[in-house]
């Protein structure tokens, strides 16, 4: 039972209300939502206040405790009037997504447990998206896509983004690419719903104001048969981000800041709720980047309240009615963190952990041998636009091999057709070509997670630069593999070679680094 006139407020009871200037939302119906904005208070004292624990209900004087967004979504999905963190509830699943790596295993379990002739619980609620190991000659990888196809044919699955011609992705009209970006682009992410996926970055969809999290094959097999899953309601950590976003910062910097703050286990079993004027100013793709790396902090799910930006994005993409939910005024949060975004600087996560945070400018002596721009985290249209902006500002060529892997077919087409602002009509692809980057590759997860040995841009050995005068240096650095990447993880071996060193960064920082051959703060080019 979602409250139909919930007001979202991030002014938790214990915060001096004068310091809090955040938007309030009101919602009467799913399609006509007015967003009321309060003036942003400029009086933010520090970049990050220490975490504060929630006041006990007795001191608030409230009779009925409000629920956070996450709690409300799970309450609605489990047909309960209310739930509290710690409750175990059986939840109805709105969408289940799987891909080529975990799909076959999930299907195997489904058939074993429910019978070889069993039918999935709802042929329209399953979205099957091959994306991980596609453009490879690895026979098992190819076979796995075939397994998905056979299953979809047998079950008459409505949404199967198939690929048959591996030599030319454009010859496959149904093929999309990276599952999390495809889910959003195809309108499968809707406010208030429960979306599960056999992939840890399923939390990306929380950007749409829904509960989205990753599960394993066995749980997915269970959902395939029943359409339900047992979930424990997580407590919520609230991240309030205010201040004007500097033009050298992107959502990737914000989430690296947060993960660096709370560590890779700081949000384990918890929901991460992102609010504040800065969050409201983010586009959908930027919000997706923010929620995407929630799992890197151990988080169960990430969530951002839906607003006009969300509804505008969904316009024309989905005809399924949805009902957004918002955190109550008296909702209880485990902890609240506040940021003045205007004070933040471009960041990297150094090898070998996403929480190994450092200022990009402090890593300027780190020589790199490649740059990778791609993945669900940093391979969306706006990510490429951002990289193009830096190359445009510089006008020079890259000093290291720069790999570009658009997340989906649509992103690839945008890279080739959308004009970059301020570029006199040039597209991203033209700017990339002039800067000497590699040709944008076929859309997929690519080398973000290594993959079969023939995966494009996989870190196998040191990259030989095609600039002659660097060849000698490259021979000396034959075992030197350092990549700046817009992806989401940098644990040992993540992109292939175990000794490979990966610096996670925003597309701005990645492009700037490509131009210098060292880890570089994008302000070198953007200011």
């Amino acid at each position, binding site marked *: 039972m979602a409250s139909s006139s919930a007001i979202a407020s991030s002014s938790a009871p214990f915060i001096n209300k004068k310091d809090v200037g955040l938007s309030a939302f009101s919602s009467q119906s799913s399609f006509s939502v007015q967003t009321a904005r309060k003036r942003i208070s400029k009086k933010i004292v520090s970049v990050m206040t220490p975490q504060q624990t929630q006041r006990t209900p007795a001191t608030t004087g409230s009779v009925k405790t409000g629920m956070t967004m996450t709690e409300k979504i799970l309450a609605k999905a489990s047909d309960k009037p209310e739930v509290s963190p710690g409750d175990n509830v*059986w939840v*109805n699943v709105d969408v289940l997504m799987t891909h080529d790596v975990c799909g076959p295993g999930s299907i195997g379990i489904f058939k074993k447990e429910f019978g070889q002739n069993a039918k999935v619980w709802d042929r329209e609620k399953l979205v099957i998206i091959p994306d991980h*190991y596609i453009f490879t000659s690895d026979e098992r990888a190819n076979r796995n896509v075939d397994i998905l196809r056979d299953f979809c044919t047998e079950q008459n699955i409505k949404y199967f983004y198939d690929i048959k011609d591996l030599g030319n992705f454009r010859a496959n009209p149904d093929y999309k690419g990276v599952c999390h970006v495809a889910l959003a682009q195809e309108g499968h992410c809707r406010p208030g719903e429960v979306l599960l996926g056999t992939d840890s970055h399923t939390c990306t969809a929380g950007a749409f104001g829904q509960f989205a999290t990753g599960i394993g094959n066995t749980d997915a097999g269970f959902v395939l048969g029943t359409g339900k899953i047992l979930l424990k309601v997580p407590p919520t950590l609230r991240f309030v981000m205010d201040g004007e976003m500097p033009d050298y910062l992107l959502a990737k910097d914000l989430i690296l800041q947060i993960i660096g703050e709370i560590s890779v286990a700081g949000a384990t079993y918890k929901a991460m709720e992102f609010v504040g004027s800065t969050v409201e100013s983010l586009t959908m793709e930027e919000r997706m980047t923010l929620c995407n790396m929630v799992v890197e902090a151990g988080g169960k799910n990430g969530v951002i309240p839906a607003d006009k930006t969300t509804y505008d994005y969904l316009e024309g993409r989905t005809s399924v009615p949805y009902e957004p939910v918002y955190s109550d005024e008296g909702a209880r949060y485990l902890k609240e963190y506040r940021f003045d975004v205007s004070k933040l600087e471009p960041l990297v996560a150094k090898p070998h952990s996403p929480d190994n945070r450092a200022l990009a400018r402090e890593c300027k002596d780190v020589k790199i041998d490649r740059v990778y721009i791609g993945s669900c985290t940093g391979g969306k249209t706006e990510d490429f636009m951002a990289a193009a902006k830096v190359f445009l500002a510089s006008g020079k060529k890259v000093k290291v091999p720069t790999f570009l892997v658009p997340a989906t077919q649509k992103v690839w087409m945008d890279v080739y057709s959308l004009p970059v602002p301020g570029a006199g009509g040039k597209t991203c692809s033209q700017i990339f070509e002039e800067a000497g980057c590699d040709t944008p590759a076929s859309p997929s997860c690519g080398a973000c997670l290594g993959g079969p040995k023939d995966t494009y841009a996989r870190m196998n050995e040191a990259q030989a630069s095609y600039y002659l005068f660097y060849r000698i240096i490259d021979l000396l650095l034959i075992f030197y593999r350092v990549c700046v990447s817009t992806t989401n993880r940098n644990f040992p071996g993540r992109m292939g070679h175990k000794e490979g060193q990966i610096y996670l960064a925003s597309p701005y920082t990645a492009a700037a680094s490509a131009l210098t051959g060292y880890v570089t703060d994008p302000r070198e080019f953007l200011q």
Partner: protein
Amino acid sequence: MAASAALSNSITAFKPSPCQPRAASINPLPSIKLPSISSNYPLISHFAPTPKNPTITPLRSAAAAAPETTNSSTTFHGLCYVVGDNIDTDQIIPAEYLTLVPSNPDEYKKLGSYALCGLPSSYPTRFVEPGEFTSKYSIVIGGDNFGCGSSREHAPVALGAAGVAAVVAESYARIFFRNSVSTGEVYPLESEVRICEECKTGDVVTVEFGESRLINHTTGKEYKLKPIGDAGPVIEAGGIFAYARKTGMISN
């Protein structure tokens, strides 16, 4: 004790909820009965204890015979392999092996041969010898946030296929913990102190469920473990489906 409590509560707090009826008349879906039980009585109390089986064997998937040991008398004895903090799924099973499908028996076995091969060269001892499919180490001892990273079920599966009976870590990432229980492949046990700093790869250890303790015979030290609670019977049964059938949640 969030990790083990997570599943332990999940088993005890079922409420009846009707399964959505499905239109297809050919639907062979067994009905899922979610028992209404008092939260004071965990499901396992409905079963009488079975005779103790002193043979120590690692638990396998549901395909294995029904276990003869009860939760209270299960022990595991063997060599331990020690790793550090934040052992992520890429180290447990590198992504290039994810083309192997765990529900395929041959590929399940192959996954075992690659278990923990993603560990960097700072780990001088290999977990599984080249050419072998199982490891001589049946207990993995870890630090914080074991299993972080991907949701890939291949991670606990690879460990289970390699012969690991239990992981004893300071804390777990949630998807790994959940997958371990749902598949029944390994027992994810939690220690109360940093055992990974006091044990060495190759130490002979015993893990006792009933006493919730780990004994390191090589050093002579004992350590308290957090009880696995109701997640135990799920793993013992062979995973969530086997458990659901055993307890009558899914009719056979």
